[in-house]
């Protein structure tokens, strides 16, 4: 039952999630972060850390969001680990407002 990053993260990259992950299992590309399901220990610590509610345990995903399980697995294998907080992408605050957060 790993945790997964969903499309709310796209275009944001606050990376608050990364600072509280005990096992450094977040990966990143130009758009968003991904959780490596084989390393995630299901601690749930990143969920409240994310300001836009992008992270969910896989068992709570709605049917149309199930695809993110596979996307996280595939993209985390293809992208580098991120261990420290980055500066948010330009437009991140607009995105947060657009999500009503």
């Amino acid at each position: 039952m790993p945790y997964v990053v969903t499309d709310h993260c796209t275009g944001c990259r606050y990376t608050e999630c990364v600072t509280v992950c005990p096992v450094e299992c977040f990966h990143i590309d130009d758009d968003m972060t991904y959780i490596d399901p084989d390393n995630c220990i299901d601690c749930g610590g990143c969920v409240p850390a994310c300001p836009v509610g992008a992270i969910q345990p896989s068992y709570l995903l709605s049917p149309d969001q199930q695809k993110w399980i596979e996307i996280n697995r595939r993209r985390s294998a293809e992208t580098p680990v991120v261990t420290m907080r980055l500066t948010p992408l330009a437009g991140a605050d607009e995105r947060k407002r657009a999500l009503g957060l």
Partner: protein
Amino acid sequence: MTTVPRYHVAIVGAGPSGFYAAEALLRSDKNIAVDLFERLPVPYGLVRFGVAPDHAKLKQVTAVFERIAQMPGFRFVGGVEIGVDIGIDDLRRSYHAVILATGAALGREMGLTGENLPGTHQASDFVGWYNGHPDYRDLTFDFGGERAVVIGHGNVALDVARILVKTPDELRHTDIAGHALEALAESRIREVHLVGRGGPDGTRFSAKELQEFGTLGNCDPGVEMGDLAIDPFVPPQGVDPERKIAIGLLDAFSRRAWEKSRRCLFRFHLAPVGFEGHERVNRAVFRWSAQGEGLEQDVGIDTNLVFLSVGRRSAPVADVPYDAGRGVHANAGGRIGVEGEEVPGLYVCGWSKRGPQGTIGTNRACALDTVEKLLADLGSLPSPPSTAADSVVSSIWQRQGLRLDFEAWRAIDLAEVARGRVLGKPREKFVSVEAMIAAAKGKDIAC
């Protein structure tokens, strides 16, 4: 080529925050050596002695700590209690800086009448006992009654309740201490009341931990509806998603029938008043108040086993300023002391800095923050003689007659895993310091 370290930092306490602080120091661009001191011969703090035995996946975080222990410049010095075996000022004289990461080992008392009656326990004692902590292994708990009461609505209370209602078969293949498995197998408890002051929207349960109660083999979760006003499960406006899920789970529990042989009953709006009994506790008394209606009433729950899970505090360390109100080493954002009067070169991180809150990874952000401050100060701190740190460590090893270092821990670890294998457990812990040392010696590490 290895260069001689310019800076020596001592960290006190080998729990998550101690390891994350070590990592941050060793990853910095400064040339730093780290000695991590730990009271016990075994590392990992509450990951070993707090996190519940049936949460095996979480314990995989120790793989990260093992990697940190491999970093050049890292040394684990087990079996030394700072403030007892070595004074904090002696340590400060020998290192550029010292970071306390001593956790929050003590339960918080509530100051209620009868709180010390036999049968009333701190949750932290029970947790230490079932996890095989040497300080708690000789405690005894009476599981002969049918009802236990757990006071507090946080995740530790859920751990305590879950261990009480799980069957021996659900626990047998975890790393629970052998003595606990044996005692719990004889338990006659059928009902555990999880009691809190607030309503369903006021708990600190995480959704994931609560969800587990719906999946137990021999226990149904329930809610005492008599405690609640009408529509108790409507989430308040603006509540965070996690809380919303938790409220929804409690709602579902409230509609479940009691069919299995055990039950875990969530109780609300009950503030503890005291405990009654002669030789031992036989009743816990609470004051129930209806929200906003001015109604109040005393409610008694007959029980001879009570666990208080209302918080923890750090054990003070001799000669380190203590903040009794917050139950942590007095600090201003990680520097020990009060703002403007910090003790130079003395820092704190983890639960002994911010109190018992957050998940394991919260300690990583917390340790990074403390290390940032230390690094900013480092240039202005007085330098001890360059061999002082080595002298401290070698005198400890001489006194111990062996090195309780990370190699020694590895020997203990291997022996525990081997003992566990024959029982179908991930490990069978050694529950006394003597047994840990004997296992360490098995690998011929005598000086």
